[in-house]
């Protein structure tokens, strides 16, 4: 029964929450380390790479784990939305990568410039070749601002231009622009790209937050909010899309379907879209630009992405089995996080459930044992609908809602408790995940 599954996930969560780590009864959650001399390269030290390295370090004894990433700052990206709404300071989302790297993991502070899965090696930006027995690709994705004609990330915060995805500083500058807009009211434009994207709920959350802040400042009646959706729906999960449609109607947010942003005139405050009726323009006083997203260049240039001529292949998402996170053509390569070519779930919540599966499979390979760990596509999106309320939406590959607290916390209801969880619990869970504890 469904209840049994929920309970299992919950017990896993309890076991992983660190509670059990301090009590000997919890040993089932952390089996004895497997002895191995394998060399494992983890490419990328963001949410997925750090969580993978931490877990591998706990599960293996004697293996050489090499974490390759030049980035020194760690960004807690789910917090960007709160920063861009003036609810948290910029420092809330910034920490150091080194804080989360386990002692016995070797760090290489360079980027991977090329992947050579045929010869089982990666090459770094300085030209160094690092061979491996196993590779975990966790490079995340790149924001392709260049694909929006006229866009200039240096000007975020200026003249009503926001883009809260670009980084902590951009999120803070987006807040400055949005706050100025909310003081006067006017026309605000939101939207999302037509590519796969991380946290597909974030553009919607930001629309709701802007609506709420306008109301708090008494300027909602003077304002018009428009959401440009790339497709015919507001969210990929039909039951959620329908709920958001109703909420947008309730809040008076106008929706333009099948509008894909192609360009922007920052000085004249005009956004351009490819729409069913041809090119369309929308004028704005405030806009939150969310660019197309693709796999990083070295991944796209490698043999790793899908080769089936699909949109996924074009954007370079890595070809993996969606239940095991193992590469379909290179069995010694696993891929976790945003760069993985799986349906749905480019979120930190998916990372939390993908990483244990990939690590279980990799460790089982080394131990020469079978493994039945499966990732079912679980992801979650605490969809903020105003400051103080959210919907705790969780779902899987099959578009089924998979609430952690069935019959207690209703997923499609705007609740204070869901907001409280989003504001207080999620960052702690995320940090525990980076350390391999959750």
């Amino acid at each position: 029964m469904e209840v049994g599954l929920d309970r299992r996930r919950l017990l896993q969560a309890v076991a992983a929450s660190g509670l059990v780590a301090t009590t000997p009864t919890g040993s089932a959650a952390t089996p004895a380390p497997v002895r191995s001399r394998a060399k494992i390269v983890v490419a990328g030290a963001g949410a997925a790479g750090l969580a993978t390295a931490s877990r591998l370090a706990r599960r293996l004894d004697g293996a050489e784990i090499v974490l390759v990433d030049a980035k020194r700052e760690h960004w807690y990206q789910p917090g960007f939305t709160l920063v861009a709404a003036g609810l948290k300071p910029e420092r809330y989302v910034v920490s150091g990568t080194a804080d989360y790297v386990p002692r016995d993991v070797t760090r290489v502070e360079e980027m991977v410039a090329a992947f050579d899965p045929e010869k089982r090696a990666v090459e770094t930006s300085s030209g160094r070749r690092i061979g491996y027995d196993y590779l975990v690709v966790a490079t995340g994705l790149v924001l392709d601002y260049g694909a929006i004609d006229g866009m200039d990330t240096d000007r975020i915060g200026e003249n009503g231009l926001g883009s809260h995805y670009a980084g902590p500083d951009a999120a803070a500058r987006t807040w400055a622009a949005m706050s100025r807009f909310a003081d006067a009211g006017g026309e605000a434009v939101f939207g999302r790209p037509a590519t796969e994207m991380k946290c597909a709920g974030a553009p919607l959350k930001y629309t709701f937050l802007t609506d709420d802040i306008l109301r708090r400042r008494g300027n909602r009646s003077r304002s018009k909010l428009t959401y440009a959706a790339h497709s015919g729906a507001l969210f990929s999960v039909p039951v959620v899309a329908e709920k958001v449609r109703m909420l947008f109607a309730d809040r008076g947010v106008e929706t333009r379907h099948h509008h894909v942003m192609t360009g922007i005139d920052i000085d004249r405050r005009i956004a351009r879209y490819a729409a069913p009726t041809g090119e369309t323009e929308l004028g704005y006083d405030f806009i939150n630009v969310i660019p197309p997203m693709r796999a990083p260049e070295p991944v796209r240039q490698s043999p790793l992405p899908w080769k089936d001529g699909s949109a996924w292949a074009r954007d370079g998402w890595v070809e993996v089995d969606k239940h095991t996170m193992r590469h379909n053509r290179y069995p010694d390569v696993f891929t976790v996080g945003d760069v993985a070519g799986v349906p749905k779930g480019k979120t930190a919540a998916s990372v939390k459930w993908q990483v244990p599966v990939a690590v279980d499979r990799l460790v089982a390979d080394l131990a020469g044992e079978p493994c039945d760990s499966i990732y079912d596509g679980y992801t979650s999106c605490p969809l903020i609908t105003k400051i103080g309320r959210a919907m705790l939406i969780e779902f899987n590959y099959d578009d089924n809602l998979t609430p952690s607290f069935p019959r207690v916390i209703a997923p499609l209801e705007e609740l204070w408790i869901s907001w409280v969880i989003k504001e207080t619990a999620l960052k702690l869970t995320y940090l525990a995940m980076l350390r391999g504890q959750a």
Partner: protein
Amino acid sequence: MQNFDPAMFVAVLDEMLGPLLWVLVVGSIVATLAFLWLLIRDRGLVSRRFVVSELVGVAGGFGAVLFMQLITHSGLSDVGGPVDWLLVVLIWLIGTVGTTVVVYDLWGLWAGRRALLGDHA
């Protein structure tokens, strides 16, 4: 309520409060022990002291709810479905009981110290 697992609450509290949870757990154990010790020392509940502690406790309950809303940038108008009210009542209860016990403890210990000093004088 077959899926109402106490472990669920512990998991949620642990996620919400992190290490603070254990500080609170240890704190409440100490406060409870002090309360029991006072019961033994005073051979029962000193009723006047307890009633006043309870009154302060009720205020402490409201304080706890306000504190939770303050740290989460929210207000009473955000409380929506039944589960939200459950959370409010839960936080209020914890605040009330906690404050009552702590006030009673402090008062009892202070009164005891005065009595002791009085003995020596």
